[in-house]
Every structure is written in C-alpha cells, then in structure tokens.
C-alpha cells in the first residue's frame, strides 16, 4: 500500500523535476502511439464505413475477421512483425526492426481493427434511410462516406479513444519489435515492465501514473469534443 504512496510521490518528483529521461520516454510514447492511431484512423474509419455500406457474399465472415482483429494479441502481432522484419525475414531489407518505426507499424496493426470494428457498428446503427437521403442529395461515394462518418462521430470518437488507449497501453508488441532500448525505443509501458522486473516498484508505479495521466488528458480533450457535438 505504502508502495503506491511512494509511487505517487515518485511520480510527482519525476514530473516536477522534468526528469529528461522520463520526459523523453513520455514523448516517445505519445509520438509512437499517436502516429499509429492516426494511421489506424485513416485506414479504419474509411474501410469500416465502406464495409458497413457494401453488400457482398462473405460480408459477415469479413466482419467477424475485423471483430477478431479487435482482440489481436499484442504479443502475437509483435511476434509476427518481428519475424517479418528480421534481417533475413521477408521485410528484413527495411532494416527497421528495433526502431520506433517498427513500433508504429505494430501498434498501427493493433489499432486498425479496433477502429474499423467500432466504425462498422456505428455506421450500421444510423437510420437506414439516412444513407438514401444523402445519396438523394447527389452525394458521390466519398461524400456519402464522409457525411455518414460525421453523423456517427459520437461513437466514432469512442472508437478513436479505444484505439489510442489500446496501443499506448500495450506492451507486448512494443517490447518485441522496439526492444525497449534506452533513450531510443523505450516507451512508458516497456519502461514500466522493466522497472518492475528490476524490482523498482515505486518507479514502475510512477511511470504507470504518468501513463494514466497522459491517457486521461487526451481522453478528456476528445470527450470535450464529443460532448460539445452532442445533439442534445
């Protein structure tokens, strides 16, 4: 229990002292997960909406695949990405294994299905005729997609948060493809794991708290947007 107290104290210390290492780690977490989330939004929201609109055999199967993807185990993603990026793996020539780039890649792979799945559900949940109304207004396919996205923005933002939360908090993939290299590919979660295995529970807790704080701030901003847009 006192450990947690110590942790909080430690966290405050680290934050107030602007410990450069912690700062670097935090920023890297933000950069990696932020980029990954943005990528996943581009891919996920569009493909989710398209999937919701399209009618084709095997749609249900594809949807299950997407939903399965929502629970893509970070370790598994990490494992496969590693194997592909190995020097003598199929993508070895990229030479990006154990770099932040690789982490962005892995996290993007984790976040995309989450965003896609939630988009899919939200768009499907809009009134059936709304789609017709938009088409009746002469919308092209991209316009249709865009307007539907705007109409579903409320649950979509939840999707964004889920996606971002999912990746900034995952550790399995980051450790495997990033290597947790000090000052280079070490992010908050991997650092937490390491400090734990070092037995420095207080530091671990401190880092966790910083991570949570970070998530909270970002979510608070997103929620503000979401709720400002609330129709009622």
């Amino acid at each position, binding site marked *: 229990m006192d450990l947690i107290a110590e942790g909080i104290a430690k966290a405050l210390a680290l934050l107030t002292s602007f410990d450069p290492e912690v700062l670097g780690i935090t920023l890297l977490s933000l950069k990696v997960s932020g980029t990954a989330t943005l990528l996943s939004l581009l891919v996920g929201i569009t493909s989710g909406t398209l999937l919701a609109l399209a009618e084709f055999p095997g749609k249900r199967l594809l949807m299950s695949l997407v939903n399965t993807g929502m629970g893509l185990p970070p370790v598994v993603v990490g494992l496969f990405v590693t194997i592909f990026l190995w020097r003598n793996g199929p993508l070895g020539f990229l030479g990006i294994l154990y770099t932040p780039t690789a982490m962005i890649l892995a996290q993007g792979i984790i976040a995309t299905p989450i965003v896609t799945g939630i988009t899919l559900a939200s768009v499907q949940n809009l009134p059936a005729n709304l789609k017709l109304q938009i088409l009746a207004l002469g919308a092209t396919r991209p316009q249709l997609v865009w307007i539907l996205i705007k109409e579903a923005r409320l649950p979509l933002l939840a999707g964004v948060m889920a996606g971002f939360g999912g990746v900034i908090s995952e550790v399995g993939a980051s*450790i495997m493809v990033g*290597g947790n290299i*000090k000052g280079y590919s070490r992010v908050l979660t991997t*650092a937490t794991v*390491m400090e734990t*295995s070092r037995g420095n529970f207080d530091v671990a807790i401190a880092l966790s708290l910083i991570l949570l704080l970070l998530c909270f701030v970002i979510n608070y901003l997103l929620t503000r947007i979401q709720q400002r847009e609330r129709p009622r």
Partner: protein
Amino acid sequence: GSSAARAETRDLILATTTSTQDSGLLDELIPLFEKSSGYFVKTIAVGSGQAMAMGTKGEADVLLVHSPAAEEKFMAADSGVHRQLVMHNDFVIVGPPNDPAGIRGETSATAAFKKIAGAGALFLSRGDNSGTHAKEKGVWKATGLTPDGQSWYQQTGLGMGQTLNVAAEKKGYTLADRGTYLALQKTLGLEILVEGDPLLLNVYHVIEVNPGKWPKVNTPGARAFAAFMVAAPTQEIIRSFGVAKFGSPLFFPDAGKPEPSGK
C-alpha cells in the same frame, strides 16, 4: 485463521530468475519436489532484481537466484536465511561471427570488454538488474571503464532471450548465460567468442526468506525446497540436464562445495 494458514502452507512461492525457467530446468525439478513433498510450488520467474525485491517484501518463500553481490546485501539486511550454493553455469561473451572488435580467443573477460570499448563496437546490456546484468557491471568495474552513456553501449532492459535477439539483429556483442544462449543458438547467428574466465562463473544460490521478518512466510516449505535442491538425486538431475538436447550440460551441481571466489 489457522485453517486459512494451513490451507496456505500447502502453497510455496518460489521467486526465481527467468534463466532457470527458460532453460526448462525447473519444469524437470518442480514436479519431482511437489510429488515428494506434497507442496504446490508457484514458480514466479522474474528478473533477479524483482525476485530479490519480492523476498525483501516477504512476498516469496524461497529464492533461486544468481546475483551474488545483491544476494549478500540481501543476507546482510537479514531478509533471508540459509543461503546455500546450488549450482553454477557460466557466462559467455557472444557476438557476430565477423567479430569487429577482434575478441575471439581472448581468455580474459576484462580484456575482451576493453577491446570492445576500444573499438567502440556495439554492446548490448540487459540493464535490468538481473544476475547477468550484475555480472556484466562487475566486469566493467574490473576494467575500470564506465560504458554508461556511450553511443556503442545500449541497454535493452529485456530478458536474456530478448537481449540476445536484439544483439543478433543489431550485430552487437553481449554477455549471456550459456543456458539461454544454447537454447536460442539455432535462430541467433551469434557465436561464443570468449568463455572460461573464472570471472564469468554464474552461481545460483537458494535462499529462504526470513520468517522472523515476515511471519506469513511458509518456512517449512522453503526449508524443504532448499533441502530438495541440494539433495544428491536432484544434483544428479542438474548434472545431466540438457545433455540430451544440447550435447553439453547447462548447469554444474555445486551443493556442499565452498563458495567460489569468482568476482
């Protein structure tokens, strides 16, 4: 609650290092102990640092660890009792076959480290306060160099296996325990470049957590496990473990022998 207490005494929490679990040794030994003693062993494989910390907090009953310096501090703070020598294997310095720092064949670890530093060749440190990390720091100490902060000196903060992978990928040197190295050898493409220096001995001790400090500790269980580890039949198994798979043993039993003065 005596009933609760009794219920609890069947469980024994063993905090140990990943190397013993990853090598598979414990998968051989634990079932035997459980059958013979009737205890249920909860093996928590973590970094030595965490294992030791669990001991200090009385969250483990018995430790099987390999970082002598930390262990002595641990005993000094009388967090533990009955520290017994169980076995050793050794550390090896591995690196890319082309050996940019040219340390191949060196017999002295310190000399090898000096060369690596001299050549500024990439060296990967576990940096996780594990036994291996402790040993590595010891060697650096002996060389009188301080690699921290050097561009060629990178800390992974990962387990042995992971660190070996990174080293292989980045074509760097690292210090590894033989067991893990042998286990991963096939996929790594790293070679043993320096071995045999007594400084590189990797000694495992079993320590019972001090019940005086932490009443909830399962002392009989801890004692029984310690006894089991140093018992002759167990030592036999340790000797032969891994021979079948890797051609050479992974651990050398040391029960009853004097403390090695390696360091």
